[in-house]
C-alpha cells in the first residue's frame, strides 16, 4: 500500500534530479564556451596592441627616408586610429584588415628606397611585424573556432532552449575581409 505511493514519488524525484543535473551541465557547458571566446578575443587583443605600438615607430623610420610618401603614411596612421577606436568585432576586423593592407602598400613603397630597405632598425621592425601578423592569424583561428563551437551549441538542441531562456546570443566571427580575396576573380584581357 505504502510502496504503491512511495515508488512513483521516488521515480518522479529521481527523474527531476536527473533533468536538473543535465540542465546544469548544459548551461555550464555553454558558459564555458562563451568564456573561451572572451579569452580568445583577449589573445587577439594582445597581438593587435603589439602591432599598434610598433606602427608609430615604423612610420617615423620610413619618414626619415621617404618623407614625401605622405599619403601612404597617413593611411597607415588612419587605419591604426580606426583599429584603436573600434567597438565591435566587425569594426575591429575591418580596421585590422585595413591596417594589414596599408602596411602592405607601405612595404611596397619601401621597396623603392634601397637605403630604407637596408636600415637595421627597419629590418627588425619588419621582422617583428611579420611575426605579429602570423600570431594574429593564429589567434583569429582560435577565436573563430571558439565562436563556431559556441554558436553551434546555442543554435542546436538542447542548447537553443537555454539560449532562449538565458539570452545567449550568437557571436560575430573575426573575418578576413580582403576584398580581392573575397569577390569573384575578374579577368581582364
Amino acid at each position, binding site marked *: 500500500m505504502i510502496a504503491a505511493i512511495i515508488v512513483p514519488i521516488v521515480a518522479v524525484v529521481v527523474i527531476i534530479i536527473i533533468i536538473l543535473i543535465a540542465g546544469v551541465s548544459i548551461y555550464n557547458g555553454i558558459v564555458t564556451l562563451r568564456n573561451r571566446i572572451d*579569452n580568445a578575443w583577449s589573445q587577439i587583443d594582445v597581438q593587435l596592441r603589439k602591432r599598434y605600438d610598433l606602427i608609430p615607430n615604423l612610420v617615423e623610420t620610413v619618414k626619415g627616408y621617404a618623407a614625401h610618401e605622405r599619403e601612404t603614411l597617413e593611411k597607415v596612421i588612419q587605419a591604426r586610429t580606426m583599429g584603436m577606436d573600434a567597438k565591435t568585432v566587425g569594426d575591429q576586423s575591418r580596421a585590422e584588415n585595413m591596417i594589414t593592407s596599408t602596411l602592405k602598400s607601405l612595404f611596397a613603397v619601401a621597396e623603392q628606397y634601397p637605403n630604407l630597405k637596408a636600415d637595421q632598425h627597419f629590418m627588425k621592425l619588419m621582422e617583428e611585424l611579420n611575426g605579429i601578423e602570423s*600570431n594574429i592569424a593564429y589567434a583569429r*583561428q*582560435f577565436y573563430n573556432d*571558439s565562436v563556431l563551437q559556441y554558436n553551434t551549441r546555442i543554435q542546436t538542441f538542447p542548447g537553443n532552449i537555454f539560449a532562449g531562456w538565458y539570452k545567449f546570443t550568437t557571436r560575430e566571427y573575426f573575418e578576413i575581409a580582403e576584398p580581392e580575396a573575397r569577390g569573384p576573380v575578374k579577368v581582364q584581357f
Partner: protein
Amino acid sequence: MYNRIASNRRRTVFIIFLFIVFIAALGFAVGYFIDYRYGINSGYSILLMVFALLIAVIMSFSSYYWSDKLVLSLTGAVPMTREENPREYYMVEGLSIAAGLPMPKIYILEEQGMNAFATGRNPQNSVIALTRGIMHNLDDDELKGVIAHELSHIKNHDILLQTIIVVLVGMVTIISNIFLRSMFFSGGRRSSRRESGSGGLISIVFLAIGLVLILLSPLIALLIRFAVSRQREYLADANGALITRYPAGLANALRKMSAFSEVRAANNATEHIFIVSPFGKNSKVAFSGLFNSHPPIRERIRRLEEMSLGIGLKSESVINEEIKDGV
C-alpha cells in the same frame, strides 16, 4: 576533449595507486621474510611496509611536482631562447595561440636524430623539447606539424601521465637492480664466510624478490602500453593537424623522422614520451613488437596522408634530398 582530460586524470591516479601498493607490498615482503628468519615477533613486516608506504607516497608527490625537471635532466635538454632560435620560438608562440594554450617553455636536445617530446604537469607548466637534428632537417610546415602534435599532448593533459610513468617505471627498475646487485655482493661475501647462514638466507630472499621484479617487468611494460595507448598518438596527430590545418606537414615530418630518429639519451623509461620511437629501427627492447609504446609509423603517416587529400605531400626523392642537405 574534456573526456580525454578526465580519463587521463583517472589513469594517473590509478597508476600512482598501483605504484604505492606495489612498493608497500615489497616492503611487507622483505619484512615478512626477516621476521620469518629470526622467528621472533619483531614486527619488521609492518615496520618496513609503513616505511615503504611513506617513501612511495613521498615519491609520488614529488614526481607530480618535479618529474618534468627530472625528465629534462635525464634527457640532457637545455632551455632555448628567442634570440638564439627565433624561428622555433615564434612557431611555438603562434601555434600555442592557435591551440588556445599558454606558451610552453622550449628546450633543446643536442642530438642529431630527429625527435621531440613534451613534458610537464599541466598546460601552465609545460615544456616542449626539440632535438638539434629535427630543427635542422625539417622545413617550417613540418616543424609546425611536430610542435602542434606536442601541443595537443599538452592540451589533452597526456603529459602528466607520460611524465609520471617515466619516474615510476625508472624507480621500479632501480629497485629491482638494487635487489639483484645486493644478492651478487652478499653472494661474494658468503663464499668467504660459508658458515654465516643468516646472511645467506637474506640474500636468497633478495634474489627471489629481484627475480620476481625482473619477471614483472614485462607486466610493467604492458602497464605502460595500457597507460600511453597507441590511440593517443593517433589522436595527437589528428589534433595537431587540426591546429596547423595542414596534415601534410606532419606526414612529411614523420617520413623524414623515420629515416633517423635515434636519441642517445633515451632509455626504456623515457621511450614513450617521444613523438617517434627514439630507438629507431634497431630497438634495444626485447619483444619490441609486443610492447611498442608507439603505433607503427607507417600507419600514422598513412592516416595523415589520407587527411591531407594528397595536398602538399613531398615525393620520396625530395624527402631524401632534404635530409641530406638540411633545410
